[in-house]
């Protein structure tokens, strides 16, 4: 192909994917960028998981065996940062990239070059973060919540790198969120009215607004940490007129909406999968949209429930307790709607459905323990124990991550045009399901019995459960290698070809285009009934 023809044809959208490294480096195609995000997230999931294995190996029995306490703290910190900012969030962004344009009948994301940037700054951010682990003094060791003054006056010299990498992650998220909002507002196919949009699109739209609202707050928090540590300011230092508790208010004003950033897209995914395999329309579509919106709004007025022990006035404690309890109403509505969707359906149990069902049960367990945590007097007992660790791993691992796996299994045949290896997928599901519960369920017990979180060694009474927890952890970690094998096979395009609809009962624009989805879709907008 000569340069001349390329220039002449540059408005012709029917070329295929370029090949080689440049395809991925320069790509502005939403499907390529979606794939990049998903692979990046999976690699980070394995890296963060490896750190969890170090943590669980150290906690396998009482005493210090494998790592010193300082390195242990680095592992818990970086594990949290990697899983939140490197695994869950990029995975959802990857799914948004792949699916939002296909679901609303758009040819691509609205801002494709920014899309490329928002992905390609991420590997740099995580290289900086991970590199700090190998430097003198080690990586960040103050917990992923980086409470001041542990992260300012008392932190090690690599804190600036942590701050810089969080800034880059934030910029990436904000750019991704802007892209999603602009795409959904401007590029819906004719007839795709707001209340016809698939719930995945709705939940991501709301998530994107949350991201734009709170990522700058996180950027502000890390910047204040930076200036407190290196430039002599006293935002969080009482000696200079600051307040360490103010850090927590600022952090959790970001942090609580962040929790919903990591779960709202999951609600969208489950709301797509349950109707398909129940062969019945989603129950209460409109109430799902309103419930998601109210969860998002409420998420801005509950942040201090992470801080009940900091010594707030009792009036504030009561307010945040009531507000937090209120969130369980719209969340309950969602779960009830999913169950009502299944009720008198015609159900089958393909792998995406297995993950979605496990999601409903286990996420509900995590949600109910969250309701218990909202009750301030008992939160004084639960706070900063393994009960909290159990709670947020139920909502994040068996919630967010199971939903991502469900989504990958659900849409993978559409992406590759081939059915994945169902035997491996079932192995992956059952091994993950069993091991994840051996891993996280006993954490409730040790937490109630009084084991604090973030400790490298523990009293003898916690020894037996911790052994089980560690064994469950190793098994869950190994189970993900089955997923890796399955994904490699899928990317090599092995497997039976699938139809355009893939799953009988699947409805939506993405199931009307051929499988595999062509490199460019919806050059002319589809007609939405």
């Amino acid at each position: 192909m000569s340069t001349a023809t390329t220039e002449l044809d540059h408005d012709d959208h029917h070329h295929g994917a370029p090949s080689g490294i440049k395809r991925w480096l320069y790509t502005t195609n939403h499907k390529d960028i979606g794939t990049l995000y998903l692979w990046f997230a999976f690699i980070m999931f394995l890296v963060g998981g490896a750190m969890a294995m170090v943590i669980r190996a150290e906690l396998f029995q009482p005493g210090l065996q494998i790592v010193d306490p300082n390195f242990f703290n680095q592992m818990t910190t970086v594990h949290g940062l990697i899983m939140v900012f490197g695994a869950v969030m990029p995975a959802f962004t990857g799914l948004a990239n792949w699916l939002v344009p296909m679901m609303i009948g758009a040819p691509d994301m609205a801002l494709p070059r920014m899309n490329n940037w928002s992905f390609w700054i991420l590997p740099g951010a995580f290289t900086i973060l991970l590199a700090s682990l190998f430097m003198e003094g080690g990586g960040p060791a103050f917990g992923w919540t980086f409470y001041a003054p542990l992260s300012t006056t008392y932190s090690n010299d690599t804190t600036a790198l942590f701050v810089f990498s969080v800034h880059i992650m934030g910029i990436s998220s904000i750019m991704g969120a802007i892209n999603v909002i602009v795409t959904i507002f401007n590029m819906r196919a004719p007839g795709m009215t707001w209340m016809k949009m698939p719930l995945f699109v709705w939940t991501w739209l709301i998530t994107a607004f949350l991201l734009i609202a709170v990522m700058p707050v996180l950027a502000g928090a890390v910047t204040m940490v930076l200036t407190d540590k290196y430039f002599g300011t006293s935002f969080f230092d009482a000696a200079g007129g600051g307040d360490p508790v103010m850090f927590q208010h600022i952090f959790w004003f970001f942090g609580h909406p962040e929790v919903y950033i990591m779960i709202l897209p999951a609600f969208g995914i489950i709301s797509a999968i349950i109707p398909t395999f129940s062969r019945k329309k989603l129950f209460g579509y409109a109430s799902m949209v309103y419930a998601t919106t109210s969860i998002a709004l409420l998420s801005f007025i509950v942040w201090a429930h992470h801080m009940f022990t900091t010594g707030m006035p009792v009036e504030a404690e009561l307010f945040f307790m009531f507000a937090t309890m209120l969130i369980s109403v719209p969340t309950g509505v969602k779960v009830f709607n999913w169950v009502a969707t299944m009720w008198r359906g015609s159900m089958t149990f393909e792998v995406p459905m297995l993950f979605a069902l496990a999601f409903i049960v286990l996420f509900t367990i995590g949600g109910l323990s969250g309701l218990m945590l909202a009750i301030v007097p008992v939160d004084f007992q639960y706070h900063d124990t393994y009960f909290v660790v159990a709670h947020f791993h139920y909502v994040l691992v068996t919630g967010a991550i199971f939903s991502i796996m469900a989504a990958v299994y659900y849409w993978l045949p559409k992406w590759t045009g081939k059915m994945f290896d169902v035997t491996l997928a079932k192995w992956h599901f059952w091994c993950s399901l069993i091991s994840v519960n051996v891993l996280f369920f006993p954490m409730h017990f040790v937490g109630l019995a009084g084991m604090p979180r973030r400790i490298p060694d523990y009293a003898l009474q916690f020894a037996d459960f911790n052994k089980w927890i560690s064994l469950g952890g190793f098994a869950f970690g190994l189970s993900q290698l089955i997923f890796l094998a399955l994904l490699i096979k899928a990317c090599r395009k092995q497997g039976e070809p699938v139809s355009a609809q893939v799953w009988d009962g699947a409805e939506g624009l993405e199931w009307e285009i051929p499988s595999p989805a062509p490199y460019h879709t919806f050059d002319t907008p589809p007609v939405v009934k």
Partner: protein
Amino acid sequence: MKKIWSGAMTILTSIIAFSAFADSGTAVDQYQLNLRKGVTDISAEVYDLHMLMFIICVVIGLLVFAAMFWSMFFHRKSRGVKPANFHESVKVEIAWTIIPFIILIVMAFPAAKTLIAMEDSSNPDVTVLVTGSQWKWHYKYMENDVEFFSVMATQQEQINNKFDKGENYLLEVDRPLVIPTGQKVRFLVTSDDVIHSWWVPDFAVKKDANPGFINEAWTRVNEPGIYRGQCAELCGKDHGFMPVVVVAKDPAEYNAWIAEQEEMQRKAKEEEQRLLAMNMSMDELMTIGEQVYLRACAACHQPNGQGLPGVFPSLVGTDMIKNDMPGHIDIVVNGKTGTAMQAFSKQLTMSEIAAVVTYERNAWGNNTGEMVQAKDINAVMTGQ
């Protein structure tokens, strides 16, 4: 239908029975599953609240899961079921918005009542100032002239798996806090460096220790005994090695104890003044210095004096060690603001500081040959 319902009830009752059984365990119960009832009226209320929440959550969970599993068994395609067509019902949706809301109100009342009681620390009988610092607690009795540090007593060899672990591994201290039973004890909680959190599960008291601010909590212990807890907020490297031990004695015993402590601490101060006039030999200084070093300094600067590069500085062959004895004494006595280096004038006696400075200047090949005596420390502390 009836069969399934009775099955669900069996599971529910066995869960409740199991958890009721579980709370009868002691502190060292290997299979303790549940929150402990504790030894105060408040902690018992908290426990009841916890059980109420737990049972409500279990019932809601079981109802939801029962409906879901019912569908999964009876509404499956392999049974030839044709899907129904309904996909909304305003009545049902309003019902499952309103009913949970009512359940929440039922939960909110007892929770608010207990919370307000917990936060009322007025009219205490005894007040203790609890100060956290990296990685020890300091207790000061506000009505008496008694104050002391409380440091973990578990040997490093147990942690490193060289010795067998004792019964109270990681939950034992050199000097526990002593409080009277049956009296309202108020804790004023603060910190000298990072945020810590003072937690005794048996009292249902957990309060963050924030540097520069003072939090309040209180308890009234019903049973004499030894109660153990831990620091609950990540506070750096040795966060896991910062236990809290509280001994509750009946008021008569407590009064005797506090009088004895007052007397002892007064005598110790006199003794310290007397020792100012005496010089210790190099051997004495080095022996005491090593003990003090391992207790107070080795957590950061490491037993070999090398520190942790990039985190805690080394003490081997540095400029301060070789050339700057006054600077060395000053940093140990007054600490260094803006770093983790604490002021040890409050924690160690003058002769202990003298010994540990001597030790640091002569151990690990530093060999300066210099001796520091208690009177040198006194000179720095009194600004002479």
